[in-house]
């Protein structure tokens, strides 16, 4: 079940961040089409006109890099990252929400924090020395493509904040309903 199809009422902010991530993802998904076209252009140039351009080949892995990195946060919001579902499907909803909260805080966030912080200095280094391709006829501005790493992991972070918020909302509502039920019962 994907979060966006979740019937639970979502708070405004969660809705907004998820929508941002989905829109960014949908835009990035079109890069797959661009990648296909780029490859076809290369094939035509090489096999019909006997031309080859290193820059064109490098554009391909640049596009691929953006696709896979932005894909991380998109799959997250779509809840399609693979889980071991042996027990998970048998847990009650509140247990699953609690696992989600613990997972985000103890597992996901430390990983995001470390990757994000180090990726900033990684990009900065590349920018400082004006890094370009190692190939003589390759592309410049390596920092630009490297900066997809912090961008992607930041998107993943705001996705996780939104998910965390939903989990807390759910548990709070549940608690509230339980209390109300209890008070009605008495």
């Amino acid at each position, binding site marked *: 079940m994907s979060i966006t199809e979740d019937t639970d009422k979502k708070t405004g902010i969660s809705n907004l961040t998820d929508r941002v991530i989905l829109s960014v993802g949908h835009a990035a998904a079109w890069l797959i089409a661009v990648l296909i076209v780029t490859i076809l252009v290369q094939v035509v140039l090489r096999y019909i006109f006997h031309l080859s351009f290193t820059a064109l080949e490098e554009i391909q892995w640049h596009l691929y890099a953006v696709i896979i990195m932005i894909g991380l946060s998109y799959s997250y919001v779509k809840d399609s990252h693979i889980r071991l579902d042996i027990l998970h499907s048998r847990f009650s909803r509140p247990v699953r929400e609690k696992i989600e909260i613990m997972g985000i805080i103890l597992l996901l966030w430390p990983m995001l924090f470390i990757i994000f912080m180090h990726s900033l200095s990684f990009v900065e280094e590349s920018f400082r*020395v004006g890094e370009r391709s190692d190939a003589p006829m390759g592309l410049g501005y390596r920092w630009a493509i490297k900066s997809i790493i912090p961008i992607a992991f930041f998107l993943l972070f705001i996705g996780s904040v939104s998910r965390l918020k939903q989990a807390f909302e759910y548990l709070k509502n549940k608690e509230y309903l339980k209390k109300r039920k209890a008070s009605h019962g008495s």
Partner: protein
Amino acid sequence: EKKLLLKTPLCFATSMPVLGDSIPALAADIEAASNGSIQIKYYEPGKLIPPFEILEAVSMGKVNAGFGSGAYWQGKIPEAALFSSIPFGPEADEYLAWLFKGNGMALYQEMYDKAGYNVKVLPYAIISPETSGWFSKPINSPEDLKGLKMRFFGLGGNVMQKLGVAVSLLPAGEIFQALEKGVIDATEFSFPAIDQKLGFYKIVKYNYYPGWHQQATILEMLINKDTWNSMTPGQKAMVEMATKATIINTISHSEAIQGKAIRENVETHGVNNMYWSDDMLALFERTWKEVAQEQAAQSPAFKKIWDDLTAFRADYAYWKSLGFLPRKTKI
């Protein structure tokens, strides 16, 4: 004495002759000579990080040392290629003369300092000429080069590109397959003993000499500057001595094994050893001079090193023309 563990990623597998197999010996030398106060723990390429990332990781202090080659950092420091190998450039003895008794070493260290990399550089190897490529048919004229799809590395690649070759830069492991499938028509890679291991002779039978693009290649050890500064004078001297000793080890090893490899290529694998015609060599050299001028025009740092080397080589050329016997090529 203070104990030091150098975590050191490699850019050549230790199974590779000279480039890689010199490193376990170097590590053992340093460990023994320092009575165990310095230990080198080396990691095969890709085990910690891929080779092209080594400079950055050492400079940032993610690891405290690493092995590499200037040509690997061309994207970050264009002039670094000059400290790896140079088309129509110096042979091993001349290169070493410039490095250790000319301004070479000072310029080498200055290059990293100026580019803002926090590393101490120590050359640890210089190796024999490479072959200038494996082709499926003889190349007799500039026309034969046009439209050829070839794998080529470094500054020589710019030269080939100018001559109408479609140059690509495949990693070592992908060359054979690309050659076999006809994705590329020709390739250069390394000196004969290593080319032989990769098995290019199984597919293409024309091996060209001399390796105009790479007459000698320097490899380097990088140590994080903070780590270097924290070492005792004795430890520093130990590492410098060991890397210098490894230069003798590598050049003698690589000079010792090529003849046998070349002979095997011809006698058991049916390879044709070819030697570029004077016209072709002149063409490569002319084109290289254009490329070098373009590079120097683009970058003052490149120009400074290039000018110093050129001045050194002018004097050396006079000596070389008188001091040595003329060479005869056996083809």
